[in-house]
């Protein structure tokens, strides 16, 4: 006897199943949605775990290959990957920049010493490249641990909102992790990366001229250009190094007693979706990323002597910035030089002194 409308057995089964489905979705819809999200996060977490392990593996292999350590470097690498930096207290923000600068200097020295111990046979360039490789591995390790933390917390509390927040930001987190993963091999092999657009332009301008070192980890060359004297600055290559352009710019300005007509900064800038990689754009201000210490120092020196500042950026996304340099970015160096020359012609007079700074990681770029 049929207890539901419809003639045959198949229709009855389908009808009963649809009613059951409706009831199940009404009562457990949110939970089902949460399990779907957890599955998505889980899949990304597997990928992050793989990237983290690859990062560690590449770092250890590179250390063994280049550094020829007498003992297995794995325990030291594992310890390195867990290093943390505590930023200074900001309740009273006065003087915080110099405190942060000091902390970053200590961190840099400590990490470099660690790498030297791991790779005693490596030269200065190789040690810098290894440090960059380990920092990429460290970033992957940290991303994995944070995502895992929220995943476990979401599962423990069965809170839709914890899982939902994680699932919503996951595409951006994965994009950043993939960028670091592709940076690993570039750093290990010492290949120029997209962030090196600024140093590449500076290297093109200073190549063939006498070079001297300026603090910290930077080089400067005095180059005549369009009847002006230009001081071309960049981090010292070809090892992975960003230097401290803030200190270098301050030093050059002080050497010239503030008699600088213009400062032009060249850097890689994050592009928006829809913009083309390698597009050159011009603006005003100190084009420099990082924790802000160098930007602060440059701005202070410029304000002291009332020096105008211009910026030229090469557009690229986060993935391009840390992976081997794309041809479009490499080719854009000549366009940047043209823009810089235009700025010099339009904004300064003959006989003036101009500072041109190529900001970014100079890995794989000499001078």
């Amino acid at each position, binding site marked *: 006897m049929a207890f539901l409308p419809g003639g*045959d*057995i*198949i229709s009855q*089964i389908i009808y009963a199943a649809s009613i059951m489905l409706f009831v199940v979705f009404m009562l457990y819809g949110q939970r089902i949605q949460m399990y779907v999200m957890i599955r998505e996060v889980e*899949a990304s977490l*597997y*990928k992050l775990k*793989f*990237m983290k392990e*690859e990062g560690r593996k590449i770092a250890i292999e590179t250390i063994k290959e280049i550094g020829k350590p007498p003992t297995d470097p794995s325990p030291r690498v594992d310890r390195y990957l867990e290093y943390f930096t505590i930023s200074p207290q900001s309740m009273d923000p006065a003087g915080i920049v110099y405190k942060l600068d000091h902390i970053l200097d200590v961190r840099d020295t400590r990490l470099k010493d660690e790498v030297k111990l791991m790779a005693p046979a490596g030269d200065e360039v190789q040690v810098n490249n290894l440090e960059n490789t380990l920092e990429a591995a460290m970033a992957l390790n940290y991303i994995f641990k944070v995502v895992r933390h929220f995943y476990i917390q979401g599962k423990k509390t069965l809170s839709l909102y914890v899982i939902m927040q994680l699932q919503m930001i996951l595409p951006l987190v994965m994009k950043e992790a993939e960028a670091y*993963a*592709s940076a*690993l*091999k570039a750093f290990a*092999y*010492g*290949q*120029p990366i997209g962030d090196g657009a600024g140093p*590449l332009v500076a*290297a093109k301008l200073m*190549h063939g001229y006498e070079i001297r070192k300026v603090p910290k980890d930077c080089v400067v060359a005095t180059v005549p250009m369009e009847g002006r004297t230009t001081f071309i600055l960049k981090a010292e*290559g*070809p090892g992975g190094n960003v230097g401290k352009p803030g200190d270098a710019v301050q030093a050059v300005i002080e050497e010239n007693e503030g008699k600088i007509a213009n400062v032009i900064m060249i850097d890689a800038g994050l592009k928006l979706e*829809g913009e083309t990689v390698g597009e050159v754009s011009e603006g005003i201000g100190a084009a420099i990323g990082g924790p802000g210490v160098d930007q602060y120092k440059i701005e202070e020196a410029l304000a002291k002597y009332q020096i105008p500042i211009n910026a030229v950026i090469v557009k690229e996304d986060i993935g391009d910035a840390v*992976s*081997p*340099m*794309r*041809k479009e*970015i*490499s080719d854009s160096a000549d366009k940047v030089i043209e823009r810089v020359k235009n700025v010099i012609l339009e904004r300064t007079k003959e006989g003036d002194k101009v500072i041109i700074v190529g900001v970014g990681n100079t890995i*794989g*770029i*000499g*001078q």
Partner: protein
Amino acid sequence: MVESKQTSTADKISTYLLTIVMIILALSIVALLWSVMAFTAGQTEYAGFLLIVGFIAMGLSVYVLFQSRRRVSDLKINAPKTMTTVECKKCAYKSVREFQRGDYVYKELEKCQKCDDKMIITAIYREVKEKEKTYAF
């Protein structure tokens, strides 16, 4: 030279998942065979039901297998092919070769094949062939 190694862990699909997929695939084949037998015996309703169940199970198992294979292929860090441009500043002779460890921009290399002057590396880059995506804006 840049090599792209594939790790063994990346090539593995969970054996547990594979077993379940295979069992469901086998059951779906059995359901399809039974549906043929039911149809020849004249039980058309029963045959239709088994046919639908068989096809759905087969579709699902193939889909899961395909998805897990895709996920495995995603788990690889590929080293993109990077090129090095070597130039002679004197005679403008230019050559492009694959990146070798130790290369850097403005590194001085061996003598030029044409004029005996030193050659230098002028560019190191990777070429990306992006799929053309069209957006309204």
